[in-house]
């Protein structure tokens, strides 16, 4: 199918984009990489009357080191840029490794970090990973600028705290504390499909090898990325063992996530997968944390 007609603006700067959003607000839809929006427009499921295209805004495409030693990623940075960035691999390996799981090569050359986060698809990796790593987002409008933590950003299915005149311009991903390990585990019908279930784990050990902190965030497990806080809490103060990992997996999969049934998987199968994947993720994450401890 072909998209319905729309009015098109291609601002060359963030300021220009914000002024267009201030003027058109609710009527406008922001076009970033377009790899989710354009299919929906082609199906005529979305028919925006105004499209504000960010692709000419060069100032929004960058990967930089953050002051905190983490990573700052401009909203219009392509997945492919992150995938091939040594800095990203070093500072945010969890995000770097996820890139090859996002759709296909041709989609990754267009798809953007900011676009994926703003789209807030609960099946997508970047919202969940931003949350797992304690990331935050810089939102700008003509009214000003604000930073919103990932845990406060995602509201529900395809919905965030972004106001109609607001633009997500940057993501800040802090570094993981020392002696941290991470893992991303997914089950997808085909490797490049949206995951039936996925979990990102970030764990930190103290000097004695006891878990100091953990984060578990699930993909395709609810109407937004789902952080399993009680499961993470249950790991704290524990030496990693299969028993504690199994317990955490049980809590997360049975009590904290809220997966739905669709044509690809029932909620029951998704909970089962969440349980399996949590155990695998924790095992790998603790393993990695222990290895960094030896190195350090």
């Amino acid at each position: 199918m072909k998209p319905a007609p729309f009015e098109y603006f291609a601002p060359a700067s963030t300021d220009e984009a914000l002024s267009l959003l201030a003027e058109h607000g609710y009527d406008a839809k922001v076009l970033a990489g377009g790899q989710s929006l354009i299919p929906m427009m082609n199906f005529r499921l979305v028919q925006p009357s105004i499209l504000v295209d960010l692709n000419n805004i060069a100032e929004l495409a960058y990967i930089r080191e953050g002051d905190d030693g983490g990573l700052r990623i401009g909203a219009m940075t392509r997945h492919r840029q992150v995938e091939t960035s040594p800095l990203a691999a070093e500072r945010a390996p969890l995000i770097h490794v996820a890139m090859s799981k996002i759709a296909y090569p041709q989609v990754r050359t267009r798809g953007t970090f900011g676009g994926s986060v703003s789209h807030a698809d609960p099946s997508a990796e970047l919202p969940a990973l931003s949350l797992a790593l304690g990331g935050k987002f810089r939102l700008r409008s003509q009214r000003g600028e604000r930073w919103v933590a990932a845990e406060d950003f995602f509201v529900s299915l395809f919905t965030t705290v972004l106001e109609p005149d607001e633009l997500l311009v940057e993501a800040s991903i802090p570094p993981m504390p020392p002696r941290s390990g991470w893992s991303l585990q997914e089950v997808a019908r085909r490797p490049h499909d949206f995951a039936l279930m996925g979990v990102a784990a970030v764990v930190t050990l103290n000097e004695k090898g006891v878990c100091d902190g953990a984060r578990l965030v699930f993909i395709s497990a609810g109407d937004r990325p789902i952080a399993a806080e009680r499961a993470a809490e249950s790991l704290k103060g524990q030496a990693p063992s299969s028993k504690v990992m199994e317990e955490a997996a049980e809590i997360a999969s049975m009590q904290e996530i809220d997966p739905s049934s669709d044509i690809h998987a029932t909620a029951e199968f998704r909970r089962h997968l969440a349980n399996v994947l949590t155990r695998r993720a924790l095992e790998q994450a603790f393993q990695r944390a222990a290895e960094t401890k030896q190195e350090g």
Partner: protein
Amino acid sequence: MPTTFDLTITVNGTRYERSVEPRTLLSDFLRHNLGLTGTHVGCEHGVCGACSVLMDGQPVRSCLMFAVQAHGHEITTVEGLGTRDELHPIQQAFQEAHGLQCGFCTPGILTTVKAFLEQNPNPSEEEIREALSGNLCRCTGYQHIIEAVELAAEKMRG
């Protein structure tokens, strides 16, 4: 009448100036405005990969871009590879390894492979499979395509 945009675009080394409605998909623009019908359209939702072309050397779905977004950019389509009398080494390899049957998905595969081999001249089978994961083919079962890419890599390494 809907507003149109003036667009300057270089396709396969030729510069074109055209006026288009912003909603015109790049795939339709290439095929119907420029008559470059080698680029095929199999789904219009960005999954099949038949419409893949190169923009500034990088593979993109031309059904998931508006033509206006290619303003000022360089596009390479299958017509920009070799000619019938002088096939590009990738095209030669696809003929020799029987990497195509109906040939509908082939243009998108050739452009994708071109960018891939430029970035990775000596790929493993697994890397080739990954690189082709966004190009569906219903005829070949991919095996001869993968062998063609291996052969093309060999030819291009010389």
